[in-house]
């Protein structure tokens, strides 16, 4: 390793260390005025009374603060629940907001400096590690030694990374108040873009986008000279930065609803939820644009594009989840399970999620237009369960946290309802396929090994059969790593796309049909 790369790695790890240490720093002090800032009018009275013991008390870390805050509030809520005073229970979660307004001291006073010392220095360090990678080496496949890497082969490092990611996601989804300091340090960016303070989702968006950009540059280094790989990487970087990250914030700046145009239902499972519809309907022309473009995408855009190009146009060129998988997740792509058994599980799971999402949405829409007469607010419970199980646990905790365990496309493969929908179109009505090159396959296994979706590409290639699979996201890596030039992603005539009895070229004595 070159010295400059060592420096880069050191900076990265230093930044990571600081990033984690700041969780334990800062002081937190709740006051009556601060409470008034965040509490809704109807709750203010109760909160003031219940939280009075905390006023003026200085906590030296967020954990103690959150612990006490919850204690006082839970005491009240439990009492109300016991007495069945359901309308008196405070269902809103004020913890993160309270921790935010109450924080002063080191972290709150040094947001910008800490932002530089963590996220920016980390990205910078990573970049100076990444940029010299493979310099001076001819263009080609860069997989030397990969199977010996502890990080990439479920070794100690890989397991540690996985556990760390899982913990972060658990905090992010269910205990955001504990990571209030991370939210605070992204405040300066949020204020620059949308003018408002950062939420935990904004903080997440910043890190997510940085991860895609930095690791996208790693992809450029790794696949230097391979235009397909470079173009699609540039594409996910662009869509993440502009459509997924900046545009929604800019909309907020103009008091429009938060909306990510490239997050399509049913991946964006809240699209038809009442509050989203209300938001869009009440936001004039832009709101209508959101609603109509969203619906048009689902009904026409998705099937049409998938018909012409396969689901790759979305999954490995546009989508944010795909974007992270293709960049930050790339080092783990070979960890996906290739067995027939996992394929079976995949089909059951992903289609169940699709059915769940469709049924939930259908109930929601009907309920909305019947003015809640039909199901009352029981769809809320459906939403909550879906959000918890699929939206958070599956897409987040498992989806990213399991990169180092089960590969970078766990969510896309087993859980994403949009991928399931795209997949059905791709399988049955599309011009996309991976063509195999006659009899040239030597069954080496590179293609299957590096397929992130767990497709046993070789199974098809060695019998001369086109690969037409619902799950294929068209990343093109099988084609890139094939040492014999056997695989080509193509959009072409539907005729002859699916061959159940392929013929391997080369043998004139008998025509071998593979059943």
């Amino acid at each position, binding site marked *: 390793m070159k010295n400059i790369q060592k420096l880069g790695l050191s900076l990265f790890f230093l930044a990571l260390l600081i990033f984690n240490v700041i969780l334990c720093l800062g002081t937190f002090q709740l006051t009556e005025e601060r409470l008034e800032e965040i509490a809704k009018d109807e709750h203010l009275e109760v909160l003031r009374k219940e939280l009075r013991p905390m006023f003026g008390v200085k906590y030296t870390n967020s954990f103690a603060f959150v612990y006490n805050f919850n204690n006082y509030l839970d005491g009240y809520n439990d009492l109300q629940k016991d007495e069945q005073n359901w309308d008196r229970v405070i269902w809103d979660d004020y913890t993160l907001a309270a921790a935010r307004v109450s924080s002063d001291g080191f972290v709150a006073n040094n947001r910008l400096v800490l932002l530089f010392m963590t996220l920016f220095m980390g990205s910078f360090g990573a970049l100076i590690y990444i940029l010299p990678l493979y310099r001076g080496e*001819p*263009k*080609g*496949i860069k*997989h*030397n*030694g*990969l*199977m*010996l890497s502890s990080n990439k082969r479920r070794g100690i490092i890989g397991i540690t990374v996985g556990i760390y990611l899982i913990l972060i996601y658990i905090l992010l989804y269910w205990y955001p108040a504990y990571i209030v300091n991370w939210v605070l340090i992204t405040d300066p960016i949020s204020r620059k873009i949308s003018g408002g303070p950062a939420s935990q989702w904004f903080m997440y968006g910043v890190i997510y986008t940085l991860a895609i950009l930095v690791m996208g540059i790693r992809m450029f280094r790794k696949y230097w000279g*391979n*235009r*397909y790989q470079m*173009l699609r990487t540039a594409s996910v970087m662009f869509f993440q930065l502009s459509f997924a990250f900046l545009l929604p914030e800019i909309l907020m700046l103009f008091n429009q609803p938060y909306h990510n145009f490239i997050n399509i239902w049913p991946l964006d499972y809240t699209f038809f939820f009442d509050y989203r519809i209300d938001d869009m309907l009440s936001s004039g022309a832009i709101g209508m644009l959101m609603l109509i473009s969203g619906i048009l995408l689902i009904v026409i855009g998705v099937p049409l594009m998938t018909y*012409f190009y396969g689901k790759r146009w979305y999954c490995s060129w546009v989508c944010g989840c795909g974007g992270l998988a293709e960049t930050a997740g790339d080092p783990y792509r070979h960890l996906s399970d290739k*067995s*027939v058994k996992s394929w079976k599980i995949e089909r059951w799971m992903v289609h169940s999620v699709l059915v769940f999402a469709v049924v939930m949405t259908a109930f929601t829409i009907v309920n909305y237009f019947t003015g809640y007469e039909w199901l009352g607010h029981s769809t809320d419970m459906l939403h909550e369960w879906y959000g918890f199980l699929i939206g958070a646990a599956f897409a987040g905790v498992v989806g990213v946290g399991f990169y180092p365990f089960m590969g970078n496309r766990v969510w896309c493969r087993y859980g994403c309802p949009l991928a399931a929908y795209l997949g059905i179109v791709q399988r049955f009505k599309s*011009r996309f396929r991976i*063509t195999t*090159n*006659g*009899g*040239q396959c*030597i*069954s*080496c*296994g*590179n293609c*299957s*090994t590096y397929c992130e979706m767990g497709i046993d590409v*070789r*199974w098809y290639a*060695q019998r001369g059969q086109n690969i037409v699979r619902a799950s294929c996201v068209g990343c*093109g890596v099988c*084609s*890139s790593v094939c*040492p*014999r*030039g056997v695989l*080509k*992603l*193509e*959009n072409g005539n539907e005729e002859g796309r699916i061959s159940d009895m392929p013929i*391997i*070229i*080369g*043998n*004139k*004595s*008998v025509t*071998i049909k593979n*059943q």
Partner: protein
Amino acid sequence: MAQINQNQKHIVIIGNGISGITCARHIRKQDSDIRITIISGETEHFYSRTALMYIYMGHMKYHHTKPYEDHFWGKNRLNLVHDWVTEIDIDNKKLNLEQSPPIEYDLLVLALGSKYNTFGWEGKDLKGVQGLYNYQDLEDMEANTRNCQRAVIVGGGLIGIEMAEMLRSRHIPVTFLVREKEFWNNILPEDEARLVGRHIREHHIDLRLETVLDKIIDDGNGKVKAVITQSGEVIPCQFVGLGVGVSPNISLIQDTPIEVDRGILVDEYFATNIEGVYAIGDCVQYRNPPPSRPKVEQVWYTGRMHGETLAYNLTHKPVPYQPGPWFNSAKFLDIEYQTYGVVPCVWKHPLDSFYWEHPEGKICFRALYDGNSRQLKGVNSMGFRLRHEYFDVLLKRGGTIEEVISSLHEASFDQEFAEDHHQHILHAFESQTGIKLYPIKKKRKGLLALFGL
């Protein structure tokens, strides 16, 4: 020619390489009842020999190289025996094995593969001197190259360059001794050979052309210390990789009445001189080779086709082996090579050649054709993927060179967005031959054109 009949209930195949396994799979597809046993000493399951290098280089683990999941064999009732056959008892139709009890057969298929050549060099048996053919060789190579300061590869062929690449993946300095004037020049025409030679050097491999090994020197403890070339140069090294070809693995056959020459002699139906005994794959030698083919063919694809054909013959009315137009491929470090049809390293009138090379010197295309009839004989390409089906069809029907050059976009199998060489090749052809060509392009119509399809 015997086919499977009522009396032949047990087919035994020795060798679980591509030829033996293909044969077994295709017999099973045709006949769901017959008992099939596959005996092999190397590994329990079929794996891809061609992927050995990737295991060493850390691109894959051994299990990734297995083309079928382990449950495949049981499900298809292909009985696997992991052992070495030590003796074939032709009279009693019985095989003796190293560890397991003897196995009786009704029909025997020999798919024994090859073994690497060592020739008679002094010092060839020293520790640290080896070729690469099977899984055990890979394990040896792993052990032999630990703490290696320099390695020498002998022989400029496909295995030689693979070994060089393997060693370079672990940053071991490599000196590569090649007897010919250029790398693999006995197969590749000079332009292609030179192109690969440049790329070899680009990978910091010390390529020594026209250099022949004289002997290998002992360090006193039975390990290699250096090699001496015929010009007297001493090259210190701790590992010597032998890439000087392979020969049919026929040691098991030597004391049997089965006829052998360089390989096991078979007719067009893969039958040996003994009734009920067949041979396929690397270990065979054709009594009457197919037109313009050598007597011994040791590549993956021919092994597969032998297996397909024999399986067909055992379950149907037999047909003679008749391979289609020749094709092959390889990868020289980062440069992929493909060939279709016949392109020898030198050619004579009336054959003529067209050659184009990319200015960066890593991509090229050659077409060999008959100067009178203009019929295409074969193509070579480096760094440029070509479509097998296109050339298979064209060669079979005797298409012309002009046809190929004007429709190269159909023949290309490069990844989408890859640099398009068609125009450059077309111009090069026009300026070399003075013939004006018009590229044949499909007209795009309607909605599809809108989407660039």
